[in-house]
């Protein structure tokens, strides 16, 4: 008897993947429910090693899921909940159409809800894992907390987002975990470090909600948010406990102004007060914050690393107490929430006009205010005892981890550029452009104060010389020839004399050219296997250096323009 022939794609890559349509059929779900399930459970399509085999020989590009993922979904109890929901909505729909509103309301009271606690635990085995994945969660929650109510999305989702984000900000303030901030055209970037995990999120500028024309499906986003709020809630809970705070946050009385005490017991006001971010929360127990000291290792090979790490730790320590003892007053035109958040993260006191928002702690006429943050060209009544600075000063100070001189940031001044703190500090200057402001910021001693721009210019000149070197060299040669001819004439006219010999210097340019030639030849010996890779890498390098060159050129032109403008003045 002949052994039965093995069917194709029943093992290996072909059996490992399943298309989306196949998954739907297997799970007996509609696409809508499947999408929701995937979002909640964090199931995503996979890129197969061999797409042709994984698609069982079919052409085109299909969305492929791992078979194990689909089997994993199959045993998920939420599937049943989704099916129940389908039935429920059908019932509601029926009672609505036959106008049995009493029945409908009775049904709606029993609206089934998904319990996602277990899924959070399953997707994030540890607290650290959850922190690691918090970037998207926070960005989306912050975005949703600014939304008005939308169709098909429960109103309490937005309020919950707001509540949780405010709670998270409070925790950051208490932990003094803020490391970097950045104002971009998209919004405010914040970077915090919790348990050694850096979390970065964006908070959009004001009035970020704009009706979207069809290409944004808020339902999908709300499904994400539905999961994220649960996750953020649990993270907040643990975060508050690790900081010895009560979890549903409570305000401490000692900081409350006395005149407001009568209002305090109103619930809504309390939550607003918490949202003001200006009062510290109650602690369960006053634990002394232990300072983590870096261990000293005697004479190690990685002493440089140690040195660097120490410097970094020092910097962080500085940021934590950057605004200690300073009192800020915010004018009404500056973004209150972000400024209050970052100032309080760095230990400063802050207040604003009483009529602007609840929770202000002192008034504008307080003589002890050191800085007033304003964003208008002129202020009529100014106090001598304080600086009037623009909001960028606060952000720049935190990024520089020191109090920068305020004179460039006074109201009405043209601000210095606001640089991103997220760029790689150790990058190659040939591969990435470093603006001169950043160079100065990193090492203030390297560039003298006044004629830094000129220096920069010279450096640029030298570089461009090198770049367009070959042509210049030729022209140099020509001139040299001319010189030689002249010399010959001179010699002919003069008598023969013995001249002292001159030391022949090695031309660095010539040497460079020779080295380049040698390298070009050596380059041809790249292994056949690596040839394409090498070429593409070199192409990328070239492209990047071209970008750098372009930026440098633009800068040079701009600087010259500024200079000529100065001269004509």
């Amino acid at each position, binding site marked *: 008897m002949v052994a039965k022939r093995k069917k194709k794609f029943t093992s290996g890559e072909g059996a490992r993947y399943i298309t989306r349509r196949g998954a739907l059929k297997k799970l007996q779900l509609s696409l809508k429910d499947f999408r929701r399930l995937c979002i909640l459970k964090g199931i995503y399509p996979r890129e197969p090693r061999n797409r042709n085999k994984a698609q069982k020989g079919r052409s085109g590009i299909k969305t492929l899921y791992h078979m194990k993922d689909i089997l994993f979904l199959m045993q998920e109890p939420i599937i049943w909940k989704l099916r129940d929901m389908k039935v429920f909505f059908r019932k509601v729909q029926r009672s609505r159409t036959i106008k049995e509103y009493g029945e409908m309301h009775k049904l709606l009271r029993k609206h089934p809800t998904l319990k996602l606690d277990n899924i959070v635990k399953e997707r994030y085995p540890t607290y650290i894992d959850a922190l690691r994945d918090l970037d998207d969660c926070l960005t989306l929650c912050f975005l949703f907390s600014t939304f008005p109510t939308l169709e098909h999305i429960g109103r309490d989702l937005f309020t919950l987002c707001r509540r949780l984000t405010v709670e998270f900000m409070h925790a950051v303030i208490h932990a003094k975990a803020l490391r970097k901030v950045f104002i971009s055209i998209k919004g405010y970037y914040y970077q915090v470090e919790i348990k050694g995990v850096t979390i970065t999120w964006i908070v959009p500028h004001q009035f970020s909600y704009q009706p979207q024309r069809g290409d944004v499906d808020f339902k999908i986003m709300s499904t994400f948010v539905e999961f994220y709020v649960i996750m953020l809630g649990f993270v907040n809970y643990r975060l508050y406990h690790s900081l010895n705070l009560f979890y549903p946050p409570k305000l401490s009385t000692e900081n409350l102004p006395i005149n407001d005490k009568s209002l305090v017991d109103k619930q809504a006001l309390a939550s607003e007060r918490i949202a003001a971010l200006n009062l510290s929360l109650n602690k369960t127990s006053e634990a002394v914050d232990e300072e983590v000291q870096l261990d000293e290792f005697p004479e190690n090979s990685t002493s440089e690393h140690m040195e660097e790490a120490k410097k970094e730790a020092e910097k962080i320590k500085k940021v934590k107490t950057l605004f200690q003892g300073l009192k800020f007053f915010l004018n009404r035109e500056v973004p209150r929430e972000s400024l209050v958040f970052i100032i309080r993260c760095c230990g400063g006191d802050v207040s604003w006009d009483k009529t602007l928002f609840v929770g202000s702690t002192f008034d504008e006429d307080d003589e002890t205010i050191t800085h007033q943050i304003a964003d208008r060209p002129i202020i009529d009544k100014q106090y001598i005892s304080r600086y009037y600075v623009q909001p960028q000063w606060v952000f720049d100070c935190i990024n520089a981890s020191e109090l920068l001189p305020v004179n460039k940031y006074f109201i009405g001044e043209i601000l210095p550029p606001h640089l991103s703190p997220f760029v790689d500090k150790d990058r190659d200057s040939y591969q990435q452009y470093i603006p001169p402001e950043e160079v100065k910021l990193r090492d203030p001693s390297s560039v003298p104060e006044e004629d830094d721009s000129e220096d920069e210019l010279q450096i640029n000149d030298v570089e461009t010389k090198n770049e367009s070197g070959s042509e210049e060299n030729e022209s140099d040669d020509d001139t040299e020839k001319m010189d030689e001819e002249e010399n010959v004439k001179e010699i002919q006219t003069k008598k023969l004399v013995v001249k002292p010999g001159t030391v022949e210097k090695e031309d660095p340019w010539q040497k460079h050219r020779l080295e380049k030639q040698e390298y070009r*030849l050596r380059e041809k010996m790249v292994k056949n296997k690596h040839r394409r890779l090498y070429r593409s890498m070199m192409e990328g390098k070239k492209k990047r250096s071209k970008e750098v060159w372009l930026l440098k050129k633009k800068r040079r032109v701009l600087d010259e323009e500024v200079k000529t403008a100065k001269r004509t003045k």
Partner: protein
Amino acid sequence: MLTRKIKRKLSNYGETVQNEDANSDSSDLTDKLGTNDEDEAPVNEYVDHDTSDEEDIRNTIGNVPMNWYDEYKHIGYDWDGEQIEKGATRDQLDAFLQRIEDPEFWRTVKDPQTGRDVVLSDDDVNLIKRINAQRVPDEGFDEYAPWIEWFTGEVMKMPLRKFPEHKRSFLPSKNEAKQVSKLVHALKMGWIKSNSYYKKLKAKKKDRFYMLWQSDTDAERMRRVHDHIPAPKRFLPGHAESYNPPSEYLFDERELEQWNKQKETPWKRKLHFIPEKYKTLREVPAYPRFIKERFLRCMDLYLCPRGIKLKLTIEPEALVPKLPSPKNLQPFPTFLAIEYKGHDDMIRCIDTDKTGQYLVSGSDDSTIKIWEVNTGRCLKTVETEDVVRSVKWCPNSALSLILIASGNKVILLNPNVGDFLINSKTDSVLRDSPKSDTVISERVRTTVQWQEPSDAEYIKGYRAVLVHFKEVTHVTWHGKGDYFAVVMPDGQNRSVLIGQVSKRRSQLPFTRPKGLVQSVIFHPSKPYLFVATQRHVRVYDLMEQTLVKKLVSNSQWIATMDVHPGGDNLLVGTYDRKVLWFDLDLSTKPYQTLRLHGTAVRGVCYHKRYPLFASCSDDKSLIVSHGMVYNDLMQNPLIVPLKRFEDHKKTNDFGLFNVCFHPLQPWVFSAGADGTIKLYCN
């Protein structure tokens, strides 16, 4: 009965006391601020008045013995149909411990109806004491107060209403009973829940968060996603995204145009947004694409296929092999020394004599010229009748002979330069053609005919002329200088011919065609012949008349080849830009494929003494490389490209045709299509 009532009352008292305590506790403002609805003490509405039996909510089981509930955790049900929890039962040991620890133990009693402990207050104790003393329990009760007659015993003569009460008012409503029974049934079946249940549910929802992870790092074992790949994080913003970037980041007109042009292919843009600069923070508007970007990120998270891709962290320089510096491999030619001008057309071939004093070149203007190497002077010009495709100086130092392939003729020429003695000796040797008895076969005779030169030709230096039936493209000498080989690519099975000068005889080594023969070369020490066809190089043993080896070139078209003086290495240049180094000891595949040139390689050459080789190609370049062959068989040859020269001009898409080393010095000659020969010295 009386005692029961009193006790109930007592317990009420106790409760009020406790509640008051709780109230005073919770009066702390701060507590109320944060927690919104918890700690709201239930208001006791019966503080001031005695309660009636029906309103006591804590015993709902009726007047039944308590031991009926011994096996249950609850005692009766409350208004919402929820079970009322029994207090925790204690064993004797617990009771004893409590008796010792609790100072209030003596006044703690157990309520048999609810199963809870009740601590009696001072008033209660007083009350009990008064009852025990058989006095009126209430202290303030005046036993001797005047009697007030609340209800009179007198009967009124007339009724208040004219008609008797309706029967309905004495009977319970059937309709209501029906509805109630329906509700009760629904409650029983769990179809409906009471209001308080929903209220509780809502409250529960509010603090639904708890300590999900017990520790930071330990993971609970449960089934999770198989082989999880975390989503990559978004790139962090650079300076260009700032609201106030350095001005050079802003787009100029050209960049803006480019950006707009790439509307259909946004992924090709260098930035995904247009940088903007605002003077102050208050001018910054909301980013219009923010929601869209977030949405796209969401879509990516759930719909983008994920896979693990290895990223290279090496610099491209690391891929370039580490080779010794050319400085350490001197001597090799480094500069252009002499240019030999004189030919009117492309120079196809050059060769030097054994001593390195003279150079012969053959050109398309159907002349050959003999140059003095050191001075660059043209000593002699010999005109032939056709394009000279190949010249070779005889390797035998006792003979002054040049082999010239011109059209379908091969000429043996005595150049008459150099040592006079040798010249005259050569002439004398070649004067008389040796007589032999062997009959030349028909096949050879139709292929080649040895002819004596005419007188005019003899004066030019011709010593013998071989007329072939097809055009000759290549000639080569055997190392001893007696045999030579001739290649006629169109000759089919007669394309390779081996001639002998001393006997003036030719023979055809092959009977069957092996393809288009490009070039042949003798092994320097063994009786081997290398034959390069279009794609392969075959090595024949001429003595045994067998095929020794067949080398596979992996290229489309072999142009030329040269054998290393040691005889174990072969250099092959191909028209598809490659230079192949074969190590005959290693394998039949190239030991190394060098892609040094940009276009077709036309000439390759080994130096006879120095570890050098050169290659030239149509891209006008001559590349001199170091090619060290070690005596140690374990060590592979070392190949280092040393220097590239690019002095020839391009004419008719041709660059360089031939390259040739000086036999003694590390100098190299190159013959170009521009009609010049160039000498590079070290």
